């Protein structure tokens, strides 16, 4: 595991009387791939959106290594992009919003890295699901993040698209020295593509351990009544 990146302490989130997240403590390090899994309503997306800064926790703190927040790339479950703009225009826009000094150059670099050259001038709304997800991910990389958060990134992809996406993500983690945190409902996917697996159930962290230490049987046992 690489250098520590983020430490989350006592993170909770409540919506009225409903407690979506009980106090959760987590740490993330550069170069690691972390899967966040659990049944529907376990609090996976809530946890990710808090880490992404989309919403604030009801309580708890996020402590970043070095004191100042690192850049975070956020890949929501549904592609967050402008369907009437082309792939290139979307990337230029978000590169500009991320503060890039040269948005066109940044967009061209992202197109190359995401292998979107054939679709650069095609409207995003006309892209296939897999290509659109690659663009969704490329947009998240526009700010050169140290922590990349993905909410169920393969949920709508075909098997071959999933394979290509996971390969790209593994390369990214290696080459960019970033931390990758993704949510998934598949324990198999979590075990295969993560170094560490976190299991949430009813808003509580019930497991935090190496990916190899968790199989389907132990996963079901962790969920207990939830299963």
């Amino acid at each position: 595991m690489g250098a520590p990146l983020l430490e989350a302490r006592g993170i909770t989130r409540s919506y009225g009387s409903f407690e979506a997240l009980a106090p959760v403590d987590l740490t993330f390090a550069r170069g690691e791939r972390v899967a966040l899994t659990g049944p529907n309503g376990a609090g996976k997306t809530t946890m990710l959106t808090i880490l992404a800064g989309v919403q604030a926790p009801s309580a708890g703190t996020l402590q970043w290594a070095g004191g100042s927040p690192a850049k975070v790339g956020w890949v929501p479950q549904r592609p967050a992009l402008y369907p009437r703009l082309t792939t290139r225009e979307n990337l230029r826009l978000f590169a500009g919003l991320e503060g890039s000094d040269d948005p066109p150059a940044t967009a061209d670099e992202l197109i190359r890295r995401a292998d979107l050259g054939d679709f650069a001038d095609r409207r995003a709304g006309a892209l296939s699901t897999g290509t659109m997800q690659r663009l969704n991910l490329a947009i998240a990389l526009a700010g050169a993040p140290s922590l990349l958060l993905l909410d169920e990134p393969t949920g709508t992809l075909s098997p071959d698209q999933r394979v290509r996406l996971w390969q790209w993500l593994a390369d990214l983690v290696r080459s960019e020295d970033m931390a990758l945190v993704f949510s998934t409902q598949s324990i198999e996917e979590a075990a295969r593509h993560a170094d560490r697996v976190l299991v949430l159930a009813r808003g509580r962290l019930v497991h935090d351990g190496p990916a190899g230490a968790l199989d389907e049987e132990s996963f079901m046992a962790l969920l207990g009544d939830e299963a």
Partner: protein
Amino acid sequence: MKALRAGRLLFGKDLRVLGRSRGLVAVLIGYPIVIAILLAIALSGGDRRPSIAFVNLDAGARTVQVGEERLSVDDYADRLEDDVDLVRLTPAQADEALADGRVSAVLTVPEGFITDLQSGLKPPVLQLATNPRSPIEAQAIERNLESAVFRLNQALATAYVTQVLNLVDLIQEGGTVGIFGRSGTLLGLEESERNLAQVQKALIADGKPALAKRVAALRDYITGVGGNLELAKPAAQAIASPIRLEVREGPPGREPLSALGIAGALVVGIGLVGVLLAAALLSAEREDHVLSRLGRGLAGAGTIIWQKALLAAVACTIVGYVLLGVVALTTSITIGRWLLWLPALLLAGLASGAFGLLVGALARETRTALLAGLMLALPLAVIALIPGNDIAYWVSAFAGFGPAARIFQGLLVDPEVTSSTYVGMGILAVVALVYGVAARVALGRRMHA
């Protein structure tokens, strides 16, 4: 600085998206313009002759001759038909027709109308009943009939003065009298003076100098009266027509539109463009799922709100100038104060845009936002066009339409720009600010929910 950059980038993005969404632009901008033009035509009551029920209760009325003016109730009705379409009905039929909306008003000639006209002791009165449910049309009818009554009064005044001048001549020269229904023979001042001269001579010849002296004084008085009556003639002619208005028709093929019609077209056009465009642009951000991405420090709710409000204001200003240009080019109406229209249109667009942004921030999807925007904006814009009604003004002021309508009418017809124009602009700025802040709060909650 970062917010400014983000706002500029999103502004450019919105323009590009609009440029590629021709169907949406046609709905958001084309539709309000079409509605505005139709409304302008409908409200330009100057070209349409209203239908008015005519009830004559002065059944036994005679004809009155005033100089060369011969008047009866039928004559009066014939003259009014230059301005309106009269439908002769009984009182009951007229009330029914007014209630059914088959006529716009009921004009009643009360009993004794011609008698009053003939006597000259009190002015004859016409009674006009309008439909309170059609205040705009009622106002137009009142204007039409006031104009018709004014022209008839002027003709009658001229006839009366002519008669008075004839009477003055009769008093001076003598002859047969025929005025206000009376007849007879007058001796006349000149003949009276000549007769008295003969009497004076006869008295002197009969040795009655004292009596002759008293007759001489009477002759001096008659001569003086005759001179003064001569002076009354030009004064009476001036009273008959103190000011004359010369009316000329405009060039053929150019239909006059009323200021109300133009202001109405602008309010509806700008109101719908501002509300629908802003609501659609904001709700589209949510439908594209980008709010969560933008809300992570790339562009805050405040930035998104001001950027879209500005875009709506610019679009409204362009639409406003296009409508004004169409009016200036296709009608005989002169549109002035082109520079002053700029802040008026911008502020009206800003207010309606901010209102639309609140709708867009509250609605869950674009279709809902558009429907809600249309359902709210259209009635408020129409309410703003009800003239002279303070309640309607303040109700429609909720979306800035009332103040905008008054500003537009003022810029079109007021001879000078008054402080009320600037007060109206201030109200629009406040409306824009209030809705902008409300939309920002609502959007902020959505972004971070």
